[in-house]
């Protein structure tokens, strides 16, 4: 008997130990799980793969031309210099003018800001009306609008040139803003319509009983509830319009070329030596705006891409 009793004690002890790892409370985080190690390695490799070009660009932009000609593109600069950045911004030559990218930057700002505001203002009201104030033919209207997003841009370029000419705005900032507003319409309207349609209609009924009209409901109820979707729209539009090259080249006129067009002119210049450092600096400067937007609003940016991917 006593032997048995003795033997049973260690058993009890193990049982107790087993019970102590029985799930209870918050789940312990396992840091070194093999799955995670593989996941992080893959992510790390992918990140390096995509970051390497950026690294090369940054390094090259800070080297002098003689050092670049040595060809060690991965090695850090022996002597760090920012003069090429300054040159890119202030005095790089784009065709006839040698005023740097700053002209294009301000042009891009002058194009992007009004285009983003206009397109979102119009599209959000469109989406609101189409989702909650159905009128006769609203479905047809919507279908036509969406159909617009399936037509290749290039097809509409010539008619748009004619239209802007007739309006007397061809070759000006207003023409680019006008074109961007039009081309933003289908996708943004769809985005807003779908978002607003997902809001409970009873909410709007309640607001109507409370005496709010079309605009009252829109400004006081819907917009405060829809900040995320407005963020998504703003990000989509800023990146899209900032990166645009085609409309800028065609509609803006030489004095109003956006940054992307100027960048192209700097990089593709056929005269003199190729200043790789200045080119790299210019490219980074041009890409900096969408990049900053991405860093500052990563969460919304991803949502915007997802929304674009599903519907575009």
């Amino acid at each position, binding site marked *: 008997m006593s032997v048995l009793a003795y033997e049973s004690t260690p058993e009890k002890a193990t049982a107790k130990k087993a019970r102590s790892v029985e799930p209870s409370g918050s789940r312990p985080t396992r840091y070194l799980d093999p799955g995670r190690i593989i996941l992080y390695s893959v992510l790390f490799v992918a990140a390096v793969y995509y970051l390497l070009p950026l690294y090369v660009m940054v390094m090259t932009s800070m080297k002098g031309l003689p050092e670049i000609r040595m060809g060690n593109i991965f090695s850090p600069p022996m002597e760090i210099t920012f003069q090429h950045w300054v040159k890119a911004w202030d005095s790089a030559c784009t065709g006839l003018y040698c005023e740097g990218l700053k002209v294009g930057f301000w042009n891009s700002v002058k194009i992007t800001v009004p285009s983003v505001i206009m397109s979102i203002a119009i599209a959000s009201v469109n989406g609101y009306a189409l989702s909650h104030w159905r009128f006769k033919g609203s479905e047809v209207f919507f279908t036509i609008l969406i159909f617009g997003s399936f037509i290749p841009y290039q097809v509409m370029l010539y008619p748009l040139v004619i239209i802007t000419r007739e309006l007397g705005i061809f070759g000006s900032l207003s023409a680019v803003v006008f074109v961007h507003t039009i081309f933003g319409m289908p996708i943004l309207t769809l985005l807003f319509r779908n978002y607003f349609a997902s809001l*409970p209609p*009873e*909410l709007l*009924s*309640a*607001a*109507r*009983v*409370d*005496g*709010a009209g079309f605009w*009252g409901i829109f400004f*006081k*109820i819907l917009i*405060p*509830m829809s900040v995320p979707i407005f963020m998504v729209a703003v990000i989509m539009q800023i990146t899209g319009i900032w990166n645009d090259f085609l409309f800028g080249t065609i509609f803006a006129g030489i004095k109003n070329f956006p940054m992307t067009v100027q960048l192209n002119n700097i990089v593709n210049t056929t005269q003199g030596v190729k200043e790789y450092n200045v080119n790299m600096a210019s490219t980074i400067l041009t890409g900096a705006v969408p990049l900053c937007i991405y860093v500052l609003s990563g969460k919304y940016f991803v949502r915007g891409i997802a929304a674009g991917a599903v519907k575009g």
Partner: protein
Amino acid sequence: MNSIEIKKLGLRFGEVEVLKNLNLDIHDGEFLVLLGSSGCGKSTLLNCIAGLLELSEGQIHIKDRNVTWEEPKDRGIGMVFQSYALYPQMSVRGNLSFGLKNAGVPKAEIEKRISKASEMLQIEQLLDRKPAALSGGQRQRVAIGRALVRDAEVFLFDEPLSNLDAKLRTDLRVEIKRLHQRLGNTMIYVTHDQIEAMTLADRIAVMRGGKIVQLAPPTELYNKPVNKYIAGFIGSPAMNFLKGILHGGDQPYFIVEDSKFPLNGYEFDGPVPEEAEAYLGVRPEHVVIGAEAEASVAHHSVEVEVVEPMGSDTLVWTQLCGQHFRVRVDGQSELKVGDTLEIGFDPSKASLFHAQTEERL
């Protein structure tokens, strides 16, 4: 005086006719419940009264004023929605004051009304919270409060309790009844819960397929349902129906298979047919057992098939003349499956329905 008059109202969604030639008068200060199964058009009717839907035909008068073409805000109504529909980005105070601000009510008056309503509904401590930080019952109170501050003539409730759990539902039901007694406003209350309807209503309008089938006080609805649908819909557990042949004459009786049920004391709605196929409806709670049963005019022996104890009383399933028959007995009774039970009922409390039209006879 009538608070609301609905005249020949019709409503179509495209081809679908949801409400047809509907007439309804609601008295001043009345608590009217719209009862019906899902999809019968209750919410649609309520939205028509509120002015949230355009009528296809007919008129709506509120307080002797034709409001058919008026906006919801001008109709003197307050509405409580099924999903509460609180403005999520506003605090409770903001929710309560939104309508008043839109109407241009002075600040001091807004404050006064909010404090009065919040005191009545016991939501004073919640005024600065957002709806997301409230429980279901609290949200419901706020939704009621939003209707209350409008000082409306008429309150419209669209299934305000259906998202709540059973206990809270019972509590809030009583509160709504108290509120009505205190305010004395006209209230229209949509539900598909017959207990809610029976407990709250002065009158119940039972709807089916876009029409009002019966409009009557709860007791009348319970005792004299106009058709088999309502008879089966009102009352829990549901009424028993025995299919058989009705024989009229001086001494009407009802034959199910070989059994004869005398109908002494049954009040026919119209002329008694000579002979007709019919349903005899008997409520489980109107069935008596044992000695009492033997004393009643129609009594039979049945075998207990299933026993469902429910605490206060017990539901016994049996077969009567080969048809299912439920009997409600005292919760303390110790009946077992297989026992023989003597049952009887009073024909004057029963209901007869025509087999084809299903109308009350």
